[in-house]
């Protein structure tokens, strides 16, 4: 303990720990996918940042190894009673403690941010295991650095190792060198193809596999650092080599279209959780912390649709790529902003309604550009009419200069007629029948265009 305390104070351990902490904090504050999700996204963002943290930790290990190169120190070490492994332990443990602690502290800081927001962290065993593998990966990095620094005692080793591992990471991303067979990034526990929705997770089996390989590599690195002769060094790399031969074929391979199959959907995270009262509003379990904030605007949307033919009577969260489960259920998407807060809470009703009014079918294959823009304008008119939020931002889709005139013409009609036109549009849009623009645009197509 005494030696460990001294090493914690005097080796590079503290410095590299602080550096990793700074970079990690920077990662979750300044950018990354954490902006758009909850705890899973946070955890996978950090795993992604291993691409930078790993080489830094490895370089620190190599830098530390320089200290033992002075001939006098080696002599003092040789003549001391403690076995070589015990001599190496304090500095190796000090490095392991600080690099893994830096990683976990970054994760904790992000988690606290989430806990303070309505979107509570959704913690699962596989999720925690995946986070733990990230910390383990950094320990392996530091110890590998120690071994490389011992093997190549040169002033160029530490920076060279850092930059070369940077390059390997960047090159892997740039080329997808081997990813059509197995993702080598998974070996360093980085996540090169982020698929970071909150309802996916890395399976426990993959985390166990990675932990096995990383532990073997760390063990080999430790033994290599100890070995004083060539034979010992050759023996030291055996565990890592064996582990690599076992692990690599078992790593998940991406699908031909590039999806990273490392991730699995988590049914528990996707289980619907519903608010009390009617009409029913449900979100995924992983977003249940947001239910309270979401229910009023979603119910408001349901109410606005009441008058439409066969209007939905309940609402549920859906994934971006899938629409409403059936016509009786209104589907809505949750867009998380920074640190798990709802993005633009004032626009939820409007956005939900706009999505609900989207045409269910593609236009005919011979449709002209005018057809497209008319359909879009009709959709926009219908969506806006339900909440009357004329000023709401419509994103970059089809900014149509005809909108203001068309909307004025629509709202100039008697209320009964307005409702009928919107109902007709809705029936046609959801049922893929008739001409979407027929009624809604009758008044504008002649005047503007």
């Amino acid at each position, binding site marked *: *303990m*005494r*030696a460990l305390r*001294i090493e914690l*104070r*005097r*080796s590079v351990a503290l410095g590299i720990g602080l550096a990793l902490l700074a970079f990690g904090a920077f990662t979750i504050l300044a950018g990354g996918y954490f902006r758009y999700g909850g705890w899973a996204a946070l955890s996978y963002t950090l795993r992604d940042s291993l691409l930078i943290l790993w080489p830094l930790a490895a370089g620190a290990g190599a830098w530390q190894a320089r*200290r033992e190169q*002075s*001939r*006098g*120190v*080696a*002599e*003092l*070490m*040789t*003549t*001391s*009673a*403690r*076995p070589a492994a015990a*001599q190496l332990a304090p500095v190796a443990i000090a490095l392991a403690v600080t690099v893994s602690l830096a990683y976990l502290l970054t994760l904790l800081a992000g988690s606290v941010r989430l806990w303070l927001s309505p979107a509570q962290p959704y913690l699962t065993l596989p999720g925690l295991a995946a986070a733990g593998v990230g910390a383990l990966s950094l320990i392996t990095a530091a110890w590998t650095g120690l071994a490389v620094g011992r093997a190549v005692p040169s002033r160029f080793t530490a920076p060279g190792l850092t930059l070369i591992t940077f390059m390997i990471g960047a090159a892997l991303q740039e080329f997808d060198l081997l990813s059509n067979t197995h993702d080598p990034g998974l070996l360093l526990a980085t996540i090169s193809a982020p698929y970071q929705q909150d309802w996916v997770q890395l399976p426990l089996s993959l985390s166990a596999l990675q932990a096995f390989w990383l532990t073997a590599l760390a063990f080999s690195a430790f033994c290599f650092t100890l070995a004083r002769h060539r034979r010992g060094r050759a023996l030291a790399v055996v565990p890592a080599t064996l582990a690599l031969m076992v692990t690599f074929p078992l790593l998940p391979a991406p699908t031909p279209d590039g999806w990273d199959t490392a991730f699995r959907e988590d049914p528990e995270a996707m289980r619907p959780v519903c608010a009390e009262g009617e009409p029913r509003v449900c979100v995924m379990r992983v977003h249940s912390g947001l239910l309270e904030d979401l229910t009023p605007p979603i119910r408001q949307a349901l109410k606005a649709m009441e008058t439409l033919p066969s209007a939905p009577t309940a609402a549920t969260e859906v994934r971006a790529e899938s629409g409403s489960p059936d016509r009786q259920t209104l589907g809505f998407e949750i867009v998380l902003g920074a640190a798990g807060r709802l993005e633009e809470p004032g626009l939820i009703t409007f956005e939900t309604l706009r999505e609900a009014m989207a045409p269910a079918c593609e236009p005919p294959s011979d449709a002209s550009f005018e057809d497209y823009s008319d359909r879009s304008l009709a959709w926009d008119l219908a969506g806006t009419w339900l909440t009357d939020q004329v000023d709401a931002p419509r994103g970059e889709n089809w900014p149509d200069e005809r909108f203001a005139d068309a909307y004025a013409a629509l709202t100039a009609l008697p209320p009964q007629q307005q409702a009928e036109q919107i109902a007709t549009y809705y029936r046609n849009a959801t049922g893929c029948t008739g001409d979407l623009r027929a009624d809604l645009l009758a008044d504008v197509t002649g005047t503007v265009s």
Partner: protein
Amino acid sequence: MRSVSAAETAPTQYAWPVEAEDLKVRAGRTMAVDGLDLRLSTGVHGLLGPNGAGKTTLIRALATVLPPAGGQLQLLGRGTAKGSDLREIRRELGYLPQHFGFYPRFTVREFIEYMAWLKEMPDRQVTAAGQRAIDRVALSSHADKKLKALSGGMLRRVGIAQAIVHDPRLVLLDEPTVGLDPAQRVGFRDLLREIGGDTCVLVSTHLVEDVSAACSNVIVMASGRQVWQGTPAQLSALGGPDDPGDSPTERGYSAALGQAGGWG
């Protein structure tokens, strides 16, 4: 961790802390120690010899850095071939190398305590032992300074302190007085005599006065062999008026080497 050091439990069962017979040690390609017979008892032994005589090689062999290339070597009653024996020897061995390596970012206290830990000293004794060692080399006022901030003489004293912190039974000091000023050398000789009361101390030096002032026994080496052994008084008596040197001991040393003079 062991709670009691071997020194406390095992009575000394050996006649000589250092016993070498026809010892051969290789330094690189040359046989730097070539057929040396040596027996050292408790007390302070001075090791004299010209450059290249094999002093440092001998000390490194006795410090278990270099394995003997031939002959017999027993340290503290144990052979140096078996790993377990080596560990027992090293636990009771204090060593100051000629090129003393250190961790520049450590403070004096940290370094001494770290070395005590390396010597497998029981943890609860380390703090007190470290302080005592620092006091003995008169570095108390610098105990919490980093090593990289110390002068050469202070570093040498740190080196001596780390060699004695764990109360070893065998202390090997290679050129310990290099960089010490005269007052510090006097203090160091007092320290040597004190340690030599119950410990076998071997000091290699090129300063003959150190030997005459602090040692009970003098060994003169040349070309890898012992050429003379005796007390400092005997060494002084050996020298004639024609032998080169500024003091009787130096003249005795020259006579022991049998050299006419020049750069010895």
